[in-house]
């Protein structure tokens, strides 16, 4: 399931793993660096630590998505028990699709496609539903990606997480960090949300759970400076991957978007190719504003992929259809809960099926 998290080449890492001095921090500004003493033998003595087996996670996804889309599925059943896709049924279908937040335009497009496919008068609801899922899956399939997001040659691979406030960036980093560690990657986290109260502390807890170092500074510190130092450290310690958390920002706050640009500019001073990935984390409950979010974060943050969190609630995340159509960005992961195991690679077919309740 977590093929991406697998470490591809077991390089001369053994060397690095052996010498692990607890590093003395020169910068007095860095308030907290946590170093794993050794390769984590067991999860640290942390009551909050979660099991890292992803067995139930898979269930979580389907349960989560099924629950969330029950209404669409029910609706479809009730429309199509008429077993005829007449004008009225198509209009109802369009409305049901709108309920998933895919937007009027996308809903119309899918409805038109359904109309074009013209069903037998006697077509069973399941047949129609399967067809609908097929259309949606096809639309999303190009954005499901098997590309290993951290396959690049430069070390460390730098991945930055951006998005509006509370969208799930920090939690997602926590989940990804654990998965990477479980698959033998040597990683580091940077708590570049120096703005929100206790944001660093939040990431530090996740770092502790996964037993990985977190670069953090006092609240109010310069985020770009922190990112710069974190990359310096990650390089010096020959980390495979550096995950950078950033403060949540509304995309219409130009000052904050410019701060994001500054973080990137400063990172590039060390590595022109970094950040190698910038992921926009979207909350599944978001409506049409996600389009404006994507536009602004692509412009300022050079977004290369999407993560959608909170698909375990009642929201359906249909905006992904409109977003991918417009911006052609891959969707890497979905979040289906708050536990470390509640992260799944995006799968177009599963998402589509769940959306129409198959």
């Amino acid at each position: 399931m977590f093929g991406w998290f697998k470490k591809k080449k077991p390089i001369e890492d053994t060397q690095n793993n052996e010498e692990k001095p607890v590093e003395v921090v020169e910068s007095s500004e860095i308030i907290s660096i946590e170093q794993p003493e050794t390769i984590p033998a067991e999860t640290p003595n942390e009551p909050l630590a979660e099991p890292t087996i992803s067995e139930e996670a898979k269930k979580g996804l389907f349960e989560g998505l099924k629950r969330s889309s029950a209404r669409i599925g029910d609706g479809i059943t009730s429309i199509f028990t008429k077993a005829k896709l007449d004008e009225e049924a198509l209009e109802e279908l369009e409305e049901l699709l709108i309920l998933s937040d895919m937007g009027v335009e996308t809903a119309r497009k899918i409805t038109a496609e359904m109309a074009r496919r013209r069903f037998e008068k006697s077509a069973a609801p399941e047949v129609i539903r399967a067809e609908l899922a097929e259309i949606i899956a096809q639309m999303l399939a190009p954005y499901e990606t098997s590309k290993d997001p951290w396959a690049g040659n430069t070390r460390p691979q730098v991945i930055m997480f951006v998005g509006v406030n509370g969208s799930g960036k920090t939690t997602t980093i926590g989940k990804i960090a654990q998965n990477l560690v479980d698959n033998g990657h040597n990683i580091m986290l940077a708590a570049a949300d120096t703005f929100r109260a206790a944001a660093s502390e939040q990431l530090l807890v996740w770092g502790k759970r996964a037993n990985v170092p977190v670069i953090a500074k006092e609240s109010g510190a310069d985020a770009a400076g922190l990112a710069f130092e974190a990359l310096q450290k990650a390089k010096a310690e020959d980390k495979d991957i550096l995950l950078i958390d950033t403060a949540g920002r509304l995309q219409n706050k130009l000052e904050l978007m410019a701060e994001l640009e500054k973080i990137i500019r400063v990172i590039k001073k060390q590595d022109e190719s970094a950040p190698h990935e910038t992921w926009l984390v979207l909350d599944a409950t978001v409506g049409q504003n996600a389009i404006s979010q994507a536009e602004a974060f692509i412009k300022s943050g050079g977004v290369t992929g999407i993560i959608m969190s909170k698909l375990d609630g009642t929201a359906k995340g249909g905006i992904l259809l409109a977003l991918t159509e417009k911006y052609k960005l891959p969707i890497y992961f979905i979040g289906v809960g708050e536990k470390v195991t509640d992260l799944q690679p995006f799968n177009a077919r599963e998402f589509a099926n769940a959306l129409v309740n198959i």
Partner: protein
Amino acid sequence: MFDALTEKLGGVFDNLTGRGALSEKDVEAALREVRVALLEADVALPVVKQFINTVKEEAVGEKVIRAVKPGQQVVKIVHDALIETLGGAQEPEDLKISSPPSVIMMAGLQGSGKTTTTGKLALRLKKKDRKKVLLASLDTRRPAAMEQLAILATQAEVESLPIVQGQSPVEIAKRAMQAAKFGGFDVVILDTAGRTSIDEEMMVEAANIAKIANPSEILLVADSLTGQDAVETAKRFHERLPLTGIILTRADGDGRGGAALSMRAVTGLPIKFLGIGEKIDGLDVFDARRIAGRILGQGDVVALVEKAVENADMAAAEKMAAKMAKGKFDLDDLSMQLRQIQNMGGLGGIMGMLPGAQAAKKALDNGVVNEKIITRQIAVISSMTKKERQKPDLLNASRRRRIATGAGVDVSEVNKVIKMHRSMADMVKSIGKGGMKGLMQKMGGMKGGMPSEEQLKALGEKALQSGAMPPMGQNMPQGLPGLGGGGLPGLGGGLPGLGGFGFGKKK
């Protein structure tokens, strides 16, 4: 947007021949467009349908007023119905506070903004209502949630319940009420963990907390950027908890805010506050007119004026005015001007709020005018020392290089800022001779007080007529490089960034 909707409706009514009253057919055609507009503004579908029916009843048979186009008339009817549905034009009731200690409970989905809003409410209760407030975090789930609330309590200068690890939310609630009672607190606010409405265990827990704490207010905190899910979430939380009101956060975003209508319509609960901004004082009393305008995409003139008043730092502005009257304008002054543009949501924000400024905004969106540069210009100035800002002559090549590194930009950009400042300083010098009067005139005639709505409209139109920000006149040969070589003509005149507002007296 509003203009687009009006236009579309215009098209619908082009064929309207019969004088007199709006026929059912006319109205139906118009409301199809309204339906799409509302859906695009994230109003939830069931609410849209219900709303459209209400409007239809009102609109059919309505006399067509001669002065306006039928499309405009329908928009007006829709607009009024929106305000009505949102709770009417009057202010919502203030928070209910019972005999001390009165309990306020916060509830909502993960990441909706409960903790931040808890801090904001605390500040408001303390400052405006002179209450002694205790904050308690019942969020035992999200890492560092308790620490976050403790920090916010410090910012609001209220107390927070000491953190005790290992207690359940219900235990913490009990402890909070005890502490409030013995500590002589007027109000205790219980911040709870975010939960999805289908997490049965967590919903039961929330209901238990409510039962034990018997709050005078249980507020659902929801993100105003929420889409169709608004209905489901509001309904489900309302079913399980005796909610008393709603707070919508992130209203400072550029979302259309349809969730407000959805939540209000399905619960009938008053929307009490809007969260605007991350700062602890970013809480506004809900105003139905403002949201109605936004949902329709109408130029939000009220909001623009409010924002302008809010942002004009009077003291600083007056100080600067005095300096400028003497013909002085240093880099700190320039920085302040630039910041004012930003605080108002940037150029894009300002333009979007001005009715009729859509075309100008488009120019902005197309990158004709690049506002990112403004932020970089501020960064450049803030990378200078205090001395350098006051005496730009000090800025030799090596200093410029240092500043460029500090701000993460090229030296050429530093040079541009310095050049821009110089030309503006020159202008100020010349105005200085003419005194403040001359300056005010140059700033678009906004002498005393805030500009009126008409004035703002006129300004917006002027900006529109001037097209994609033509270069400035002789006064400012350099202009703001970020503004396509000119200031914002028509939007405050000679100085960039609506600086003119800062000089008016707050009414």
